[in-house]
C-alpha cells in the first residue's frame, strides 16, 4: 500500500484524494491549521496539522521513512517550491507531484526535485482543445478509460521468471485470448521508451519490461495475475 502525504487545501486535493481508493493508498492530509484539519476530517480523510517549513515535523509524519508520494498542492508556487526542496532533502526517492500556478515556476519546481508538475490551466486548455478538435475520441476516453465505465488502461511489469520472458509480442494474441489490447511496451533493456504496438516489428519481451494494456477491469486483473505468476502458465 502506498502512503501519500497531501499538502494544500484546495479542490484539486479533494479531487485527487477522492479518486485514490483506500484499498491501495493510505492518504494523510497535512493541514496548516486546526480548522483546515477539521474540515478535511469531516470529509472522511485522515488529517494532521503541521508547519511544512519545519523539517522535524516533516520527518515526524514519515517523510524520509514511510511516505512514498507527496502532493504539493499549495496555491502559492513559493510554498510548493519550499516544500519540494525540504522533502527532497529528506528523501531522495520519494515521488513528489506539485501543482504550478505560474508557468514560470515549473522549471523551479523541477530544479527543486519534483517528479511531476501539474498545471491545471494547461490541462484544462488541452482538454477543451481535444473536445473541440476530436470530440469523438475525447468523449469515448472520458467516459470509458477516465470515466466510470469498466474499461481501463493499465501497466503491467513483467517480473523475473514470468512466462512472458522471451515471448514475442505478436505471439501474445491478447485481443482474442484475453479481450485486451496491447497498446505499448516499455523496453527496459533497450531504451526505456514507449513502443506502440501498431503493426511494426514485434518486440521480444524481457523481465522488467512494462506492458500498457487496455480492456475491461476484470480481464486486466486476470491477465495481471497470470503475468505476475512466476513459473509456468
Amino acid at each position, binding site marked *: 500500500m502506498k502512503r501519500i502525504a497531501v499538502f494544500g487545501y484546495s479542490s484539486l486535493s479533494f479531487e485527487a484524494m477522492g479518486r485514490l481508493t483506500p484499498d491501495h493508498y493510505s492518504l494523510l492530509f497535512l493541514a496548516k491549521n486546526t480548522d483546515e484539519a477539521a474540515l478535511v476530517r469531516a470529509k472522511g480523510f485522515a488529517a494532521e496539522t503541521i508547519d511544512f517549513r519545519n523539517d522535524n515535523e516533516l520527518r515526524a509524519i514519515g517523510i524520509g521513512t514511510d511516505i512514498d508520494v507527496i502532493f504539493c498542492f499549495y496555491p502559492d508556487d513559493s510554498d510548493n517550491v519550499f516544500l519540494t526542496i525540504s522533502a527532497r532533502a529528506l528523501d531522495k526517492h520519494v515521488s513528489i507531484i506539485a501543482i504550478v500556478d505560474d508557468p514560470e515556476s515549473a522549471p523551479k519546481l523541477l530544479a527543486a526535485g519534483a517528479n511531476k508538475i501539474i498545471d491545471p490551466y494547461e490541462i484544462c486548455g488541452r482538454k477543451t482543445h481535444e473536445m473541440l478538435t476530436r470530440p469523438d475520441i475525447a468523449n469515448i476516453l472520458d467516459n470509458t478509460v477516465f470515466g466510470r465505465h469498466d474499461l481501463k488502461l493499465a501497466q503491467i511489469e513483467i517480473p523475473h521468471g514470468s512466462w512472458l520472458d522471451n515471448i514475442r509480442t505478436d505471439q501474445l494474441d491478447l485481443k482474442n485470448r484475453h479481450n485486451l489490447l496491447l497498446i505499448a511496451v516499455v523496453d527496459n533493456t533497450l531504451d526505456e521508451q*514507449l513502443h506502440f504496438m501498431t503493426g511494426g516489428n514485434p518486440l521480444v519481451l524481457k523481465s522488467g519490461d512494462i506492458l500498457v494494456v487496455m480492456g475491461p477491469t476484470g480481464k486486466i486483473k486476470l491477465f495481471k495475475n497470470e503475468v505476475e505468476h512466476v513459473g509456468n502458465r
Partner: protein
Amino acid sequence: MLTRLIIHIAYSLQLSSIYQRSKRFFHNLLENPNSVIKPYFDVFMICLVMFNVFLLIREVNTPLTDAELLFEDILVGIFITEYLLRVWLYRDTHKIILEAYEKATYLGIPFNPAHAIKVIISTKLEYMLSPLALIDLLAILPGYRPLRMYRMLQMFRLFKLFRYFNSIKLFSEILASKRFDLYTLATFLGILVFIGSTAIYMFEFPAQNGHIKNLFDAFYFSVVTVATVGYGDISPQTNGGRIVTMALIMSGLGVLSFFVSIIVSAFNDKMTVLRENRVYTEIGRYNHFVIICGFGRVGQHIAAQLQKDKLQFVIIDTDPTSILFAKQSGYLAIQADASKNQILCNAGINAGATAVLCTTGNDVINVYITLTSRHLNPNIRIISRVNREENVQKFYQAGANNVIQPFEIAGMVVAEYVGQPVAFEAILGIIREEQQCVMETLCVQTDSMLDGQSLGSINFDQRKLLLIGVISENSLHSQHKNRYTIKNQHFYFNPPDHFKLQQGDLLMVMGRDYSIEHFRGLIERSRLTLRKKR
C-alpha cells in the same frame, strides 16, 4: 391606372432576384466598406482622378490633344454613371412606394402616388445635398464645355479623392466628431485675432516708420503671429506693438497646443473603433472559426493549440492587458464583454462560427456567455469551463454541450499518474499527439470500401493500425459484447472479426499519422471508384 402600374412595378422590383442581385453588387462595389471588390474599384478611381490631375496641370501651358480630350469625356461618363448609381443606391425607391401603399391599404384610404414620389424626391435630394455627393456633382460639371474655363470647378475633381481614401475620410470624421471643441477653439481664435489686429493697428498705424498701413495689414500680421509663423515682412516698431506681439505669440502657442490635443485625443478615440472594425472585417472573411471568450491561462493554451492546428479563431476579453497580449501574439482579438448579444453577433456567432469556448475564470460570467450564445445560435457547439462542481448542471441547463472542470481533470491526472504513470503518459501522449502515435476516428461512408465489410476482412495489422473499437448509433450491432453506452451512441471495444460495419460507424484507430492518412485516402478513393462504376 398609373397608380396600379406604379404599385405593380414596385412589387416586381421587390420580387426580382436580378434587380436585388444587381443592387447588392453595386452596393458592394461603391458603398460596402467590408466588400472584397470595393478596394479595387477605389484604386481604379484614384488612378483615374490622378491621371486627370496630371492633364489639368498639363493643360495650364499646353493645349490637350484629341486623345486626351476623349479620355476627359470617358472620365466624365464614368463620373456621371457613378453619381447616378450612388443616387439610385440611396434608399430603395420601390420600398418607399410599397410602404406608402401598404400604409394606405391598412388605414383604408386611397393611395396617393404623388405623396410617395414627393418622399422619394426629398430622400434623393437629401443624398444629393450631402458634402460628398456635392463634390461628385461639381467634379462632373467641368465636363460641360462652357464651364471648362472655370478652373476652380476642375479643382473639385481633386476633392473626389476624399471618397476613395479611407484615411482622408477618417480625418474628416475625426474633425466632425470634435465639432464642438473645434468651434470653441475657432471662436477663441477669432476673438484673439480680432483683439490682436485692433491693438496692433492702434499702436502701429500712427507710428512714423510703422509697417501697418491699413487694417488688413494688422489682420495679416496677427494671423501670421498667432500661427507662430512670423515671416518678418511686417514687424512692430512701437513698444506697445511689441507687447501685443508677445501676447499674441504666447496665446498662439496655447491655441496650437489645444488644437493638437483635440486632434490627438480624437484619433485615440477613433483608433479603438477602427481597430475593432478591422477585426470584424477579418472575421467576415472566415468560414469556420472558434470564438474564445476569455484570454486567461486556459484561453491562452487553447489559442496556442488552435494556432498550431492552423484553425481560425477570435478572442473576446474585457481585460485590456489580455487583449494586448493576444494581439502581440498575433491573434485576432476584441476587447469587449462577450455576454452582450451585439458583441457575439459582431464576432460572427451566426456567420461562420462553429464553436464558442467560455474560458473565463468566473462561473457566473461563463454561464451568462453560454446562455447568450445558445440563445443567439441554437446549433452552435458550446464548451464551458466550470470551476465549482456544484455549477456543472447549471452550465448544461444554460445550453453547454461540454463542460470542462480544470481541477477535476487535474485531480484525475494526479490520481492516474500515481497509480499507472507509464500507461497514463502513453495515453496522454497519444491524445496530445506528442508521441509518434495518434488516435483518430475514420467514418464508414456510403459506397466506401468499408461499408458492409466485416472487420476480419480489413487487415489492420498490415495497414500498421490498431483498432481500438467502433463508435456507432446503429442498433444492428447491439448483439455484440464489450458495449459501452455513451450518450446516444455505443462504443464497441475490441469488436470481433465478424463485426459487420454499417454506414455512419466510426472506427477508432491508433497508428502513425501517415498510416492513418494513407488508409483514409484509400477509403476516399474507393468511394469515388464505386460511384464512377455506377
